[in-house]
């Protein structure tokens, strides 16, 4: 009885985990710069979430959230973008509802281009 009540190590929560902080100094912000250059409207996002609200992908799949992709991009969290970006179907509803007129579809397209270049070690 006594032994069973002891916490099991894997459930305990403190282990050797990857740091959860966004490390702004170490993060790779090349992709953000790349998009800033080729689709400057992406800077205009005010994180209102209308894009995500209307996004079929965001409604039906886990973790995909176009508003958050943009935040991750600005912070240089490229792994997070890479994991989810292929779920976009390019339907363009996000672009229709955006109050700032961000060309969201093109942002995603250039993100994908940029990620491909980074993977192939090409110059961005």
């Amino acid at each position, binding site marked *: 009885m006594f032994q069973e009540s002891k916490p099991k190590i894997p459930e305990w929560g403190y282990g050797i985990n990857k740091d959860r902080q966004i490390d702004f100094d170490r993060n790779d912000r090349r992709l953000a710069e790349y998009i800033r250059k080729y689709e400057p409207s992406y800077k205009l996002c*005010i*994180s*209102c*979430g*209308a*894009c*995500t*609200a*209307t*996004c079929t992908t*965001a*409604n039906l799949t886990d973790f995909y*959230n176009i*508003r*958050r992709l943009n935040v991750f991009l600005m912070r240089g969290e490229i792994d997070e973008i890479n994991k989810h970006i292929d779920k976009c179907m390019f339907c363009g509803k996000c672009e229709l*509802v*955006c*109050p*700032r*007129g961000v060309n969201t579809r093109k942002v995603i397209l250039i993100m994908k281009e940029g990620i491909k270049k980074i993977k192939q070690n090409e110059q961005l």
Partner: protein
Amino acid sequence: MNKYVFIVGGGVAGAEAASQLLKLGFNVTLAEKESQVGGKLNQWDRLFPSKRKSTEVARFLAEGLSGNNFRLLLNTDILNIERTNGGFSISSGTAKFQADAVLIATGYDVFDARIKEEYGYGIYENVITSVELEARFKEGGKIFTPKGQEPKRIGFVHCVGSRDEKVGNHYCSQVCCVTAVKQAMEVKEVLPRSEVFCFYMDLRMFGLQFEDLYREAQEKWGVNFIRGRVSEAAENIDGSILIKVEDTLAGRPLKMKVDLLVLMVGFVPSAGTQNIGKILNLEFTPEKFLKPSDEHIDTYSTNQKGVFIAGTCKAPKTITDTFADARAAVLKIKQYLEEDVPGK
């Protein structure tokens, strides 16, 4: 003092400027297109932040408008304004009026919510504007859906026609955030068992007591605030409205059924402002409001000498700020008429 001032627009700014000019001894003609003075104030029930009745303020305005040197023109449209040796000749219908200075106080219109068609205003009967909700409060405060039921859940959509480049209005209308908070509390007063939600992008509580109102809405009335811009509304078969929004703090899309959806419509420059600006060849801001000659030190003069502007014809404003603005414009007009009359 035999100077004449002609004021176009009898809303808060025009009426208050008239009243102050009269106190200073000028002759004032006030032209109003509607059948009474007060403008938009007459449509509101209670005013933020103290929730005093708008009729108190309207009464104050009306009390200032009297005397032998005051002339009120109701149901009057201005057809033309021309310069005549140092002054102005204003024509309305067949009548003509002379003035030494003109004050434009033509105010604003509320945004036509039908333009934002994804919210379904004018299509779904349970989608109304903040102006219509205010009218219901004014009529006695009973809130029913058009089918005569008490709404159990009410949603307020902030920034309808404001901060929205898709409808051509990129600016903030200033008063809608605090109006939504005020109206949300008033709904809870009338319908204590209802659930009230505000969907906002940012809550801009800039006035001294506005943040207190926001706090009161949370603490006393249990109003719910969800940070996210509503992307669309659709009607259910029972007439209730299904809205979609991202709860940006949870980071997930959210859908919700509401019985009544209130759209917080913003300020747009009024048709009268557009018209008078063209007649007088005034400069406009990119937002199509009237442009003052200096954004900091003189927001009352225009590019036309002798033509002054006050109130919401130049930018969205609260009633408090409109009063201050009208009085400041009066000071500018007085200086102009006493020191700088052309031909003197």
